[in-house]
């Protein structure tokens, strides 16, 4: 059975015990139980006596993550990603909402194409919100009908991949958006200034002989749009901010009360332009690489010019990355957004300068954020705020772990490590320079809108009621609980049969393997609640 559920599954009921609950919306950071009854967070006392119990001690539970910038590539570019695969990647990364950017073929530039995406995403593994094209065909010339698009439920418009090159077009768009309360989501890049460049200008670009993208390419566009936002009273959201100078301009604009918001990607926080030269340290680690000493070491043939490091905007200098981290920490940067940009192998297995820009990020965003937290560069609550509550609020969603709220949460093991491998990714593509690296933080469960959309690695010890009963009483459990409906009916019948609510443990039926082996071997094929497969039997225990 799949480790993924969907947002159209039946609502879940369970008790999560002993988790460290971090909820920025309530200023909460404490260990407590979380009860979910029919998809709603509830008082544990209201939980049915035989509801599944999940021991989450040692894990962190936070509101579900919300990505403002995801490329799902469907329609038209399904070799890179689909709505189904992209939302599975989202769920695996702890995201319960993703905002699909309009870089598709064709781009969503009318209400019909927006509805097509929303219909397609009806049974996805995370909620999909749509960012429509700002101009017809993302051509930069003719603004889309934002009134009509707003009625179809979009969360903003953007020509992401390029800025609105014409100030007049941008102004016209903002004038239309002002009364709708929707943002122009701007990819801030002056195309002529950045023309021909493939990485960030600086010592590393000079060393590598690669054309460099100057800071002014971003700053000039940010300054223009701040002026337009002030003039029109409309909302401009700058996405994937990459330079300290542009951040400072936004900081000043916010102080003046201009309606601007911004996000930054995890890779612009954690990675630097030295990665293009083969350096593999995080921005907050000991400075090294080419920027520190152009003659310090020969380029590593295995890592230098890795096309996976080509992104747009390009990876920044260490100084920029640290300034951006500070911007997240002090709240100037509203959100961390992945800019998850999947590409098929043929678009990345080429010369650096010919490679399509972009890297995947849904499955690594939380880990990179946790790495920053581990380093002391960021507080956990601020990380969760930037990944969850704040971006959600920008698109009109709420995130809360208070009783009565819809259960929308992620459970992760902040201390665990995982090694990123291409074959283990839920995304169709694997274009990330993090492949092979060990990262902190493992998502154990994602619940979107009251439905479990992902669960993996929750040790059988962590679950109690029902597992033995399910296996013995319901053979369907042993063939993998193929559907949510089956799972639900099993649970319902378990309840009807009066299954014991005492603690149970799972053990191998025919061997004395360890419990960790149980978890490892059954996580992807066992029954929904106890994760044990047909080769494992579960028994009651008085412990």
């Amino acid at each position, binding site marked *: 059975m799949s480790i993924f559920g969907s947002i159209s599954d039946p609502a879940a009921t369970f008790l999560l015990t002993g988790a460290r609950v971090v909820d920025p919306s309530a200023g909460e950071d404490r260990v407590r139980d979380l009860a979910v009854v029919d998809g709603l967070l509830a008082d544990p006392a209201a939980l049915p006596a035989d509801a599944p119990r999940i021991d989450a001690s040692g894990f962190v539970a936070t509101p579900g993550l919300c990505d403002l910038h995801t490329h799902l590539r469907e329609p038209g570019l399904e070799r890179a990603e689909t709505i189904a695969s992209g939302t599975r990647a989202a769920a695996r990364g702890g995201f319960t909402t993703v905002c699909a950017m309009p870089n598709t073929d064709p781009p969503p530039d009318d209400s019909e194409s927006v509805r097509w995406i929303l219909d397609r995403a009806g049974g996805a593994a995370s909620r999909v919100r749509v960012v429509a094209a700002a101009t017809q065909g993302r051509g930069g010339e003719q603004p889309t009908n934002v009134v009509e698009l707003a009625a179809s439920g979009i969360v903003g418009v953007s020509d992401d991949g390029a800025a609105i090159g014409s100030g007049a077009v941008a102004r016209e768009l903002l004038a239309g958006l002002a009364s709708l309360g929707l943002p122009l989501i701007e990819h801030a890049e002056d195309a002529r200034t950045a023309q021909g460049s493939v990485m960030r200008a*600086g*010592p590393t*670009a*000079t*060393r*590598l*002989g*690669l054309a*460099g993208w100057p800071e002014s390419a971003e700053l000039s566009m940010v300054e223009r749009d701040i002026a337009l936002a002030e003039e029109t009273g409309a909302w401009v959201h700058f996405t994937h901010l990459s330079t300290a100078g542009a951040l400072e301009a936004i900081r000043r604009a916010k102080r003046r009360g201009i309606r601007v918001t911004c996000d930054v990607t995890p890779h612009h926080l954690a990675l630097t332009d030295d990665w293009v030269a083969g350096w593999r340290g995080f921005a907050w680690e000991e400075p090294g690489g080419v920027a520190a*000493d*152009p*003659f310090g*070491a*020969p*380029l590593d*043939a*295995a890592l*230098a*010019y890795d*096309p996976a490091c080509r992104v747009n905007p390009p990876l920044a200098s260490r100084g920029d990355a640290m300034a951006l981290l500070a911007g997240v920490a002090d709240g100037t940067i509203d959100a961390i957004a992945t800019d998850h940009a999947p590409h098929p192998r*043929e678009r990345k*297995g*080429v*010369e*650096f*300068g*010919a490679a399509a820009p972009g890297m995947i990020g849904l499955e690594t965003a939380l880990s990179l954020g946790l790495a920053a937290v581990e380093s002391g560069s960021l507080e956990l609550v601020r990380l969760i705020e930037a990944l969850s509550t704040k971006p959600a609020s920008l698109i009109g969603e709420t995130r809360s772990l208070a009783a009565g709220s819809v259960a929308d949460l992620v459970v992760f093991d902040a201390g665990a490590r995982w090694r990123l491998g291409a074959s283990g990714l839920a995304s169709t593509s694997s274009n990330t320079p993090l492949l092979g690296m060990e990262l902190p933080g493992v998502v154990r469960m994602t619940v979107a809108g009251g439905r479990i959309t992902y669960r993996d690695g929750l040790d059988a010890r962590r679950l109690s009621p029902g597992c033995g009963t399910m296996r013995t009483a319901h053979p369907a459990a042993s063939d993998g609980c193929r559907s949510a409906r089956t799972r639900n009916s099993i649970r319902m019948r378990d309840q009807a049969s009066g299954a014991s609510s005492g603690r149970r443990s799972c053990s191998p039926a025919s061997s004395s393997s360890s419990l960790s082996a149980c978890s490892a071997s059954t996580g992807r094929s066992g029954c929904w609640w106890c994760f044990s497969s047909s080769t494992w039997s579960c028994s009651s225990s008085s412990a």
Partner: protein
Amino acid sequence: MSWPGADAQAAGVWPHRHLLDVDQLTLAELEQCLDVAVEMRERRTRREALDLLRGEVVGLAFHEPSTRTRVSFELAAKALGAEVVDLRIEASSVSKGESLVDTLRTLEQTGVSTIVLRHPMSGAPYLAARSCGARIVNAGDGTHAHPTQALVDALTLREALGPLEGKKIAIVGDIGHSRVARSNMHSLTALGASVWLAGPRAWVAGFAGWPGVTVADRLEDALVDADAVMALRIQLEREAGDGAVASLREYTAEWGLDEARMSRARPGAPLLHPGPTNEGVEITAELAASKRSLIGTQVANGVPIRMAVLSLLAR
């Protein structure tokens, strides 16, 4: 026969599979390359049979126009007894959109053991080295590196000046877009020389702070007491293209080399140029033809240096 250069560094297997840039070579390896080239040149002059690559196939994959580099590699490979396959890009599947990796794998599968790659994109040889099993020799990639030209220049300078330790070498012109200059910065500083850069600000500013490298504000500062001067080719197609210079005429007026400007350097200081020259632009025709000019020697050193590289990689 024994391997040339065996005396210079006792036995020893050459530790590198590819030559991607001179930055990967230690000082001893740099000197070994030059010593092997000298020995190759002498044996070639004596018309000794050098069959060190007999049975091997060297593929030339030049994705950019080239005359001297391409010819010198071809002559070097043949002088070592190798077969040479010349992948004529304009007539190959590359023109039909075949990727670089696919092209090189095809070459490898047809028995090519060493691929000499020139490519307009910086870093292409690094992609090649991790994508196919053949040995890769970088014959110039984008604006990044041209290691064999740097070895040619180092040999030419060493023979003109003696050991380069403590010598001042001025490099003049479009440094920023020059793969020759970058590789020379590595090799010359590794050999103990100090490198002075001079040219329009936009073309030199990025190199400020590089160890062993000084960015001069004025051409005169770079030239004064220079032991040797290296002029770079101005890419005519770039004229006024990136705004660094208003026109070639202005460039020549401010940065062009003639005998009068060269007089600031040490007496008889040699002039190098990787070619092809734009006479009357970066250097005068008279200077190019003067006694100072080692341009012809550079060309002549091209074959033995490439013989040294091909033979060392095959060890």
